[in-house]
């Protein structure tokens, strides 16, 4: 055999052996990643599009969240679906239950979600995240007391293949997710990003929020006391406001730009909610505020029992409290 033939053959064999070893690795990676994404997709569908189901062998139902003492029981099988009555519409109660159930019996939840089979086993993390949340900067939805609503499962690894699948969902009660603050009663307090002071016979409250406002609602309970005068004013500023007072209109809830340029006004009615999210967004956009720009607010409240309900993590759009249900599988 000639030297030329040997050289050609050896180069070919070296190449062939290299490729033969390289080949399974390439396809293993692809297969693994595709498989992970399918599992993540499956979990989002199970959670967002089913109510869940439970069975103890003799009885069954969909209210698995009502049996916390049985979640880890081997005779109690359940699928922890989160749907309320239509796909993507989640039950707040089921969300909290999933958080608790995963904390108590992670392996069983993993099995129930189909992530633990005889030949494959995956880890998972499920969370309810703000619309502003990104994979590199997660923003978890918090409840009215500032607690994270849903972050169930193992900590997400920072390296390796992690499949991420997300769904847009809405939750049945904005009032569980947004903080409610008493702005009517006299006395000073710090809440949300506001500072309340009692000034003479009126409350003066200073806040700073970011445009666009996510959720903002005023709930008027009633007039406080028998005095005739009562009002609630909200002044909006692009710079921190000075000491001069926000204007007022007797018996009205009024929104001003600066101290006295009226933009919106309605009569105060006892036991009435004023959903001002869209109103504020509209006013601020038309006045030239850019998204992400700070808006300074000054409230002026007299003889009015009122609550402010506001959220910095949950968006209120189309009459729904919206967030992202995000599932990570690895």
């Amino acid at each position, binding site marked *: 055999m000639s030297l030329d033939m040997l050289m050609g053959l050896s180069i070919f064999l070296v190449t062939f052996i290299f490729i033969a070893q390289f080949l399974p690795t390439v396809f293993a990676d692809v297969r693994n990643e595709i498989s992970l994404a399918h599992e993540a997709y499956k979990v989002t569908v199970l959670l967002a599009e089913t109510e869940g189901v439970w069975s103890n062998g003799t009885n069954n139902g969909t209210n698995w969240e009502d049996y916390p003492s049985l979640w880890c029981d081997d005779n109690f099988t359940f699928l922890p679906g989160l749907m309320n009555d239509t796909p*993507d519409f989640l039950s707040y109660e089921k969300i909290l239950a999933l958080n608790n159930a995963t904390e108590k019996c992670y392996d069983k939840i993993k099995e129930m979600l189909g992530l633990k089979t005889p030949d494959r086993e995956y880890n998972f993390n499920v969370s309810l995240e703000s619309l502003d949340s990104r994979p590199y900067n997660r923003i978890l939805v918090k409840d009215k007391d500032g607690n994270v609503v849903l972050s169930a499962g193992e900590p997400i690894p920072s390296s390796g293949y992690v499949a991420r699948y997300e769904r847009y969902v809405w939750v049945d009660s904005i009032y569980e997710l947004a903080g409610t603050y008493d702005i009517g009663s006299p006395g000073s307090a710090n809440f949300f990003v506001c500072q309340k002071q009692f000034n003479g016979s009126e409350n003066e409250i200073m806040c700073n929020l970011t445009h666009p406002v996510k959720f903002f609602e005023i709930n008027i309970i009633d007039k406080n006391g028998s005095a005739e005068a009562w009002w609630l004013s909200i002044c909006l500023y692009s710079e921190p406001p000075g000491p001069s007072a926000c204007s007022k209109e007797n018996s009205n809830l009024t929104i001003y730009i600066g101290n006295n340029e009226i933009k919106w006004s309605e009569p105060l009615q006892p036991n009435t909610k004023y959903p001002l999210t869209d109103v504020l967004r509209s006013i601020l956009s038309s006045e030239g505020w850019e998204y992400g720009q700070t808006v300074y607010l000054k409230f002026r409240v007299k003889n009015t029992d009122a609550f402010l309900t506001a959220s910095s993590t949950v968006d209120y759009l189309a009459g729904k409290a919206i967030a992202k249900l995000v599932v990570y599988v690895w």
Partner: protein
Amino acid sequence: MCGDIMKAQAFTLEGVMASLLLLVVVYTFFQSSLVISPMWSELSDAQLRLLAQDALKILDNPDKVDGEYVNTTLQGMVSQLDSSFEPNPEFLYALERITFPANYRLELYWVEIEDNKTTINKTVLVNNNPTPEAVGGSRFVVIEKDDLNDNSPFRNNPAIPDPVVFEVRLILWRP
């Protein structure tokens, strides 16, 4: 003698070239297997398609407040359309808030019946040009003509049956 050496060198060069060529071809083939795999491109498509459907589902809210549809809903957007076919800014804000960072195009379809002839009409509400990888979601909304604004091109058109069935198509693609 000299001729044989030249011939041998040519064979060696041919062998090396053939091996290199084989290496390049096989390596290129394996690299492109990520794209060739039919499952691969569908993964990101499936995610975006679901998000388009979810976005339309969220914006679909037939509940009225003070007798009117909410501005940020599909019903509120369609009912306020006039002959300019420009969606109201609150709706666009809500849509962009949900779909960001994806780019989007929004189309509206409806049916007209005239002289027993049915035609499907279409208008583009947000005219961005999708890429070939764009995917779409679709949702039907039904609105009575009395709920459409006075300047609505659908309200006084006798060829459009009452209630009006609209199909809203949302096309999404990654920037």
